[in-house]
């Protein structure tokens, strides 16, 4: 028994000795290899190439899988959230743009109303501000529809003006709306006076944004660019309101009167608000002369010139 125990220990030590010896030899080999490869780096390089060739396909496959996974994440899964966020941001942007547009619209409206009020204040005229809600649908008559009627004191025969100048005349008034005949309508006529030369004439409409100064004698000296204002003699429009600017004046010896073209001061295509002012002559007639087919108006309310 003692012999077998001793033989076991001996065998174990012999195994350890062999392993130790072999390890020592291999360690020496490692030192030698290190020294040799440091002097001959091509050995390590060629061996590295060999290992690289073995592992490269696997690394490539893993890289492809990794990049694919990354693409899947960043281009799809991550973008699912991004798309949702994008959608909500778009909605928010649309809401903000809508609000901005509304604010801009309110600001512009405010500016226009301020201008009208300023005009009213400057001219000492009181009246009703009305919004343009439509145009004459037939196309044969130059007219607009406003959102104020007899309930607001708008009566037939009242003048419609704007901060830039004269718009027209109320030709029909309902309780909550009224029709205005623009000064560029063929049936419109306004007693006017040329501001500089003081020539008196009648401004008649000749079509969209075009008027004519009628009954100007050939002796009258009228130059293009002169301002034409209301004379106040027709008792519809107060005196001194701008009607337009002379764009051409042609004398014709064969005729009694010269041909004077006028550009209205107000751009009717962009008209959004008007000021309805009472004239000295407020008519109670049921059928106004220019457009007899339109609805009749109610009784005039006391809208008067400020003292």
């Amino acid at each position, binding site marked *: 028994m003692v012999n077998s125990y001793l033989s076991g220990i001996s065998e174990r030590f012999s195994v350890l000795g062999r392993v130790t010896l072999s390890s*020592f030899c*291999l360690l020496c080999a*490692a030192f030698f*290899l290190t020294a040799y490869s*440091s002097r001959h780096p091509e050995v390590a390089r060629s061996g590295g190439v060999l290992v690289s060739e073995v592992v490269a396909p*696997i690394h490539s496959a893993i890289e492809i899988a990794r990049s694919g996974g990354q693409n899947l994440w960043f281009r799809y899964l991550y973008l699912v959230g991004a798309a949702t966020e994008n959608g909500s941001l778009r909605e928010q942007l649309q809401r903000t743009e809508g609000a901005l547009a509304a604010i801009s619209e309110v600001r512009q409206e405010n500016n226009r109303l301020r201008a009208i009020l300023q005009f009213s204040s400057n001219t000492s005229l009181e009246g009703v501000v009305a919004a343009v809600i439509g145009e004459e649908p037939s196309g044969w008559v130059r007219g607009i529809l406003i959102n104020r009627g007899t309930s607001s004191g708008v009566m037939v025969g009242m003048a419609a003006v704007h901060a830039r100048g004269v718009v027209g005349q109320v030709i029909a008034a309902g309780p909550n709306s009224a029709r205005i005949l623009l000064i560029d309508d063929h049936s419109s006529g306004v007693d006017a006076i040329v501001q500089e030369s003081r020539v008196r004439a009648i401004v008649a409409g000749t079509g969209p944004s075009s008027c004519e100064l009628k009954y100007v004698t050939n002796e009258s000296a009228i130059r293009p660019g002169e301002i034409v204002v209301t004379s106040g003699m027709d008792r519809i429009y107060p005196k001194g309101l701008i009607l337009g600017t002379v764009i051409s004046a042609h004398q014709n010896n064969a005729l009694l009167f010269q041909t004077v073209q006028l550009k209205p001061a107000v751009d009717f295509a962009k008209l959004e608000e008007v000021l309805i002012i009472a004239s000295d002559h407020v008519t109670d007639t049921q059928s106004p002369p220019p457009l007899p087919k339109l609805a009749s108006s109610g009784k005039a309310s006391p809208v008067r010139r400020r003292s």
Partner: protein
Amino acid sequence: MKIAILILIGLAALMAQGVLVQLGLPAYATPQLLLLVVVYLSFSDISVRGSLAAFLLGVMMDLSTAILVGPWAGAFIVVYGGLVLLSQRLFIESGIVAGFVSFFATIVSGAFYTLLSQQGDILVWSHTAQLFGQACATAIVAPCVISSLSHRFKRRSSSLPGRMSQPSAI
């Protein structure tokens, strides 16, 4: 035959290390899987064949760096030889022991490699920090790896000197 299998396992371990780095794991957190094979060898195969396998694994590691052939081989041999001397007194199948052994094996092998590859220069701080991080990472994965290797070679354990599965040896 076993050496060939171990070399293949070592190659797989080497590739696994490369994959971990490729996936973005920093170098200081990459476990030394190849060294764990050597640790396993030092407890399961105490023989000339085992030492030769450890040497070849080291050479493989050297070749993967393609700078010098020998430093890692020497480091692995040192680890293998040292652990062989301690293998009668340690129970490697315990996870904690495996972790501690792997931790110190990584420190020793890393220090030896740095010493040999830097030709005697002292360890710089970056090497030390990396070495410590790698040792921790290796210690963390060591129980799993060594347990897997033990399971893989369980049927062949009868041919081994029998250092593993001997709790009384602690």
